[in-house]
């Protein structure tokens, strides 16, 4: 009897111990079968930045595994938490072999982890050095997608406005300056009932799912013009020369929107998207990536048909803006983890190279994800917004570069975003935006570069 209970006790203790260990080890256990393959060929673990393309990456990874037998794992960080996810994932023994940084500022955090890509096939495929993060001779990151943003508009609704009696502007070609844009927006807003819309612009929501459109993308405009005047591409202290223009466009957005400006603090990205695709607003500041979210959906019977999409440059009233085009650039750079095993690095380089050269890969990037990729074998994307962006370039308009990648930190963006929100709600004044923009830049730059 005693022996039995001893055995039971031992067994129970063993169970406990086993369950403790199992908790830690379950990650490896599930992929036990593929372990053998990995040992031979290495594996790929991609930490993806873009939630809107998660599904497409998963299926591309699966296709690659079927073709080559190399295990590719794609994990997508939740919107706005990439840095957090990356920080914790990089600490694990199975760290991502392929990850992203958002530009030169993002690179400073992760440079010690980046494999030098200068001899890689991927780098040889890039069409221009404008699309890589280079320091000296070393190539730390390669942009894999070039994107464009501006003010997307609903052609059907805008045409309805052009045909109305109250319209003083008669075609989209005439809108080539801030003043024209303002006239159109204000006339639409004044006659919103006649046009059957709730407002000229979608709600400029300042919820975390939407505020990047203004604290980052719109903030790019005053930064761009200041850099252009000075002929620089980054700075430790911004002057804020074009902040009056920033105010002008922000005022236009918040005063001619689908909702009262005091309500903007709680409006989300989905709110704006829904307003636009259900035809409740004419203008929507966003980019080529938004096509998937707004295109016509058979089941829901809502959204815009391809020919209904139009896009305008973001005019802020700077001189010479008639020649200004859309904002084109990248904040998605691939980096390969240099601390990964040699096999894994090789597998990762093979995978990314396959993505940008093979038929399957380029097709998936162009058609499924709607990306314009800066590689030689790129296929033309079917995304109509991309076609519009190309049209602007061939019309000789000057693309606005993405200078927001030189913004010193996320904290700076949040500070400006908060000030913008409070200005819109009437609880703060514009001076706070200016201070956060100009003085905040200096402080944050110093903090990040000491």
């Amino acid at each position, binding site marked *: 009897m005693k022996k039995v209970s001893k055995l039971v006790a031992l067994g129970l203790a063993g169970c406990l111990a086993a369950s403790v260990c199992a908790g830690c080890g379950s990650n490896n256990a599930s992929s036990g079968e593929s372990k053998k393959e990995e040992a031979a060929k290495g594996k790929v673990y991609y930490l993806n930045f873009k939630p809107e393309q998660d599904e497409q990456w998963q299926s591309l990874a699966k296709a690659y595994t079927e073709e080559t037998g190399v295990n590719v794992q794609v994990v997508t960080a939740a919107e706005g938490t990439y840095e957090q996810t990356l920080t914790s994932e990089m600490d694990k023994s199975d760290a991502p072999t392929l990850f992203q940084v958002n530009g030169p500022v993002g690179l400073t955090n992760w440079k010690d982890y980046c494999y030098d890509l200068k001899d890689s096939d991927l780098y040889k495929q890039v069409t221009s050095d404008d699309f890589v993060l280079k320091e000296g001779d070393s190539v730390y990151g390669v942009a894999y997608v070039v994107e464009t943003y501006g003010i997307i508009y609903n052609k059907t609704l805008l045409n309805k406005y052009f045909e109305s009696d109250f319209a003083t502007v008669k075609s989209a070609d005439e809108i080539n300056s801030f003043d024209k844009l303002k006239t159109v927006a204000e006339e639409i807003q004044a006659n919103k009932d006649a046009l059957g819309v709730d407002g000229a612009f979608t709600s400029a929501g300042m919820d975390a799912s939407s505020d990047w459109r203004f604290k980052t993308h719109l903030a790019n405009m005053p930064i761009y013009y200041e850099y252009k005047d000075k002929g620089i591409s980054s700075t430790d202290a911004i002057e804020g020369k074009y902040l009056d223009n920033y105010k002008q466009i922000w005022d236009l957005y918040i005063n001619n929107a689908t909702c009262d400006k005091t309500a903007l603090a709680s409006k989300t990205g989905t709110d704006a998207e829904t307003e636009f695709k259900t035809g409740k607003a004419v203008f929507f500041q966003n980019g080529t990536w938004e096509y998937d979210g707004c295109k016509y959906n058979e089941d829901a019977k809502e959204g815009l048909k391809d020919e209904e999409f139009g896009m305008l440059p973001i005019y802020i009233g700077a001189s010479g803006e008639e020649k200004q085009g859309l904002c084109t650039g990248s904040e998605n750079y691939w980096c390969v983890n240099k601390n990964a095993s040699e096999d894994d690095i090789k597998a990762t380089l093979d995978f990314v190279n396959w993505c940008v050269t093979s038929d399957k890969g380029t097709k998936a990037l162009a058609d499924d994800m709607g990306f314009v990729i800066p590689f030689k074998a790129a296929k033309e994307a079917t995304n109509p917004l991309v076609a519009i962006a190309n049209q602007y370039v061939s019309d000789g308009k000057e693309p606005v570069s993405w200078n927001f990648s030189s913004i010193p930190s996320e*904290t700076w963006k949040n500070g400006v975003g*908060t000030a913008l929100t409070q200005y819109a709600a009437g609880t703060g004044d514009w001076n706070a935006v200016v201070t956060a923009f100009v003085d905040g830049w200096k402080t944050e730059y110093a903090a990040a570069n000491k």
Partner: protein
Amino acid sequence: MIKKNKRYFLIFVLPTLAAFIMAFVWPFFQGIYLSFCKFVTTSNATFVGFDNYIAAFQDESFLSSFWFTVAFVIVSVVFINVFAFIIGYVLTMGIRGSNIFRTTFFMPNLIGGIVLGYIWQLIFNGILLNYGKTIVSDATFGFWGLIILMCWQQVGYMMIIYIAGFQGIPNDLYEAAKIDGASKPQLLRKITIPMMMPSITICTFLTLTNSFKLFDQNLALTNGLPGVVGATGTTVYKTQMLALNIYNTFYQNANTRGVGQAKAVMFFIIVAAIALIQLYCTRKKEVQQ
């Protein structure tokens, strides 16, 4: 027999001990070490001495969030315990449907903090939008919003502990006191509260530490907003509690991870000290039956 069992002591303790060391003791000491380091990922740190602590003290947002947290803790501890005590008292008086009420009051506890934060954000905004405001328009809204949210979530849990306490008071004490001519307020003051001290100790301890460490609800409800832009262009967030401040510091840039860690160590010391003082003070008032 006891001697024999002692031989198995290690076998039974080991699994739990191992888990405790792996999941608590080791990370704890590593965390203290990291607070003296500059690092991006924790496995790759360089020692920098007290720099992080100096930077933490120079950060005005740390102090501002400390005072906000203190104010929040005081108000929420009082509110939660008073409400929980009253509801617990009422529900042990034997009114009909007590069990249904107990279950209902307890339920908010089963919902996660982030979800609760967003739900209450919708509720508050739904009301405030009628007046052209949102929960982040004013720090006062954020403060009371958090208090309401925390009361709603925690009162039910504390109520269960108080109910257990009420049921543990022997009836003969009340009878004896009544025969001696004690009035109702006297019964409450001289018998109920002294007999309830163990429950009060636990409940204040739980609410105190929970409120101090509050993070999810804070993140989801206001995320620290509104903010005030200081002279250096740095924004100080008005409804940011300590835990959220530490989190935001950690991810500010590659130089601030260690500063966040240093703040976290100080945070631990503050919470531990306050909790121990509270335990000592309330324990002294407990009586033996």
